[in-house]
């Protein structure tokens, strides 16, 4: 697997899914940092400069759309690619994620090989 030093920020409030995804990413060769809410996500982005962000949309404190919008307006963070993780079936929600500034999206339940392909395409 490529990208041993690749740092990914995983933002997900559901502990079970957070643990599972971070474990899978870790095994796929990524360095994973995590955040449980939207405000913490922005803090982590500033403090740790991840290579990419996997962002759940329904988050406490600050939702994913707000996080994406604020990150893309901040010159220091704008270049970090964001993949929205959305449980929403609706095309409109995906569009909303993209128009908030997310670079791509993945629908839950996550198709892991497809997610890795998207990550690699953005990195």
């Amino acid at each position, binding site marked *: 697997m490529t990208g041993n030093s690749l740092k990914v920020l995983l933002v997900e409030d*559901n502990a*079970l*899914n957070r*643990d*599972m*995804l971070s*474990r*899978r990413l870790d*095994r796929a060769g990524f360095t994973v940092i995590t955040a449980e809410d939207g405000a913490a996500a922005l803090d982590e982005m500033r403090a740790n400069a991840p290579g990419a962000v996997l962002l759940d949309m329904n988050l406490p404190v600050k939702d994913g759309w707000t996080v994406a919008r604020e990150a893309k307006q901040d010159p220091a963070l704008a270049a970090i690619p964001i993949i929205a993780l959305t*449980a*929403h*079936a*609706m*095309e*409109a929600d995906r569009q909303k994620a993209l128009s908030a500034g997310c670079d791509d999206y993945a*629908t*839950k*339940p*996550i198709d*892991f090989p497809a997610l890795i392909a998207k990550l690699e395409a953005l990195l």
Partner: protein
Amino acid sequence: MSDSDDTSAEWAARIVEAAGPLKDAMGRRTVSVSADERRDLDALLDALARLTDLADQSGREVKHDRLNIIGAVRGYSEMLAEEASKLHPSIAKTLPPLLGAVESPVALTGKTSAAKAGKQKLVQDPGVILAVDDLPENRDLVSRLLSRVGHTVITAESGEEALELLETMGVDVVLLDLMMPGIGGAEVLQHLKNDDRLRATPVIMISGRQDMDQIVACIEAGADDYLLKPFNPVLLQARISAGIERKRWFDREDQYREQLERRERFIRATFGRYLSDEIVEEILESPEGLNLGGDLREVTIMMSDIRGFTTLVEHLPPQQVVTLLNRYLGRMTDIILEYGGTIDEFLGDAVLAVFGAPKKQDDDTERALRCALAMQAAMDEVNEANVKDDLPALSMAIALNTGSVVAGNIGSERRSKYGFVGHAMNVTSRIEDAAGPGEVLISDSTRAKLPKALVVGDRRELSAKGIEEALVVFPLTEVKS
């Protein structure tokens, strides 16, 4: 809502059941597991335990939790399956059934209630039907009517739930109530029709007689059919069957399109580097005109090289040689593609291009001639840039010859490319050897197709040892004004 109504509860129950053998295997003391796998297995068992805990509960929140947990179960079991070779065989073999259960919310095999009843005649082509209605009695009725004849029925009690379910499972027909609190039938329909992957799923609207205006609007928005409440069971089944047939037709069309796309990718991969985008597009539009297996055709062949290149760069550092070559070849490639030539090969400083394959055009020879002149003209620019970078100026010789070659995908199974073979190729090479710096030397067969606007200089004869016949060539001089 009743337990039987929540598809996620059934799904969870199937997953827990499918995980039984895994739990048994893990319970056996004799089975050894490495620390790494132990960690994932524990996480998986933990998630399964939570799923079991939720078994008797219901409600929207519970359903949300359940789907989250199923996501985690799926993730851990996929991860473990990827490393199955490291697992004890007695554990590894329990994973495929679990993965199967996790993958699809609908049991793919198993008894339908119809089979249990054993009376009602089954439909020939059963499908997966999503019935969306906010009233439990309506859902029950539709479920009973349709599962009795062999269909698999999934139900949703709201538009939101319907969209969530559509996202995760393959549905053949959607039976959609128009009037629902929250996201109504019309809105669900609109979402479906805006989604590339769901657009082809047939939708049958259900409504009361008083809502006819809205039904008409739904049909205009892409609904396939409608039923008025209270509906006739026979009519319902007939419309569902017609919907399934339509869906199968779409699916076949989808497969066909996928085949075409695969072919397109192949053609792009084969030709993308040698042809201009325009010609690749044209080939894609009429692939039947393209014989990759090999055919004999008349083409105009172009060979060019830099005179004395090896001597010229003998004392240059390798990096500069590459800069020099790439600048020159880059410019020549642009020009050849612009004139519709097919670049067959770069051989060091030499370029081999062909006009007239894979696509034959009336003016192949003329374009080749004009291309050669344009290439010579562009050398001034290339050299200007070279001098600026302290690199040597280059002079190029070009040979053109028109004749028959075999064109096709040539090579072994491991490495093949679209290429050309034939005597005409060797002739071109001989002319190329005789061409002077800055010259475009053309064969007699190319001259025979010379357009009026172009002129040639004095005839020359090339003789070579071992070849009796002298080769007649002409230098292409200039464009008449």
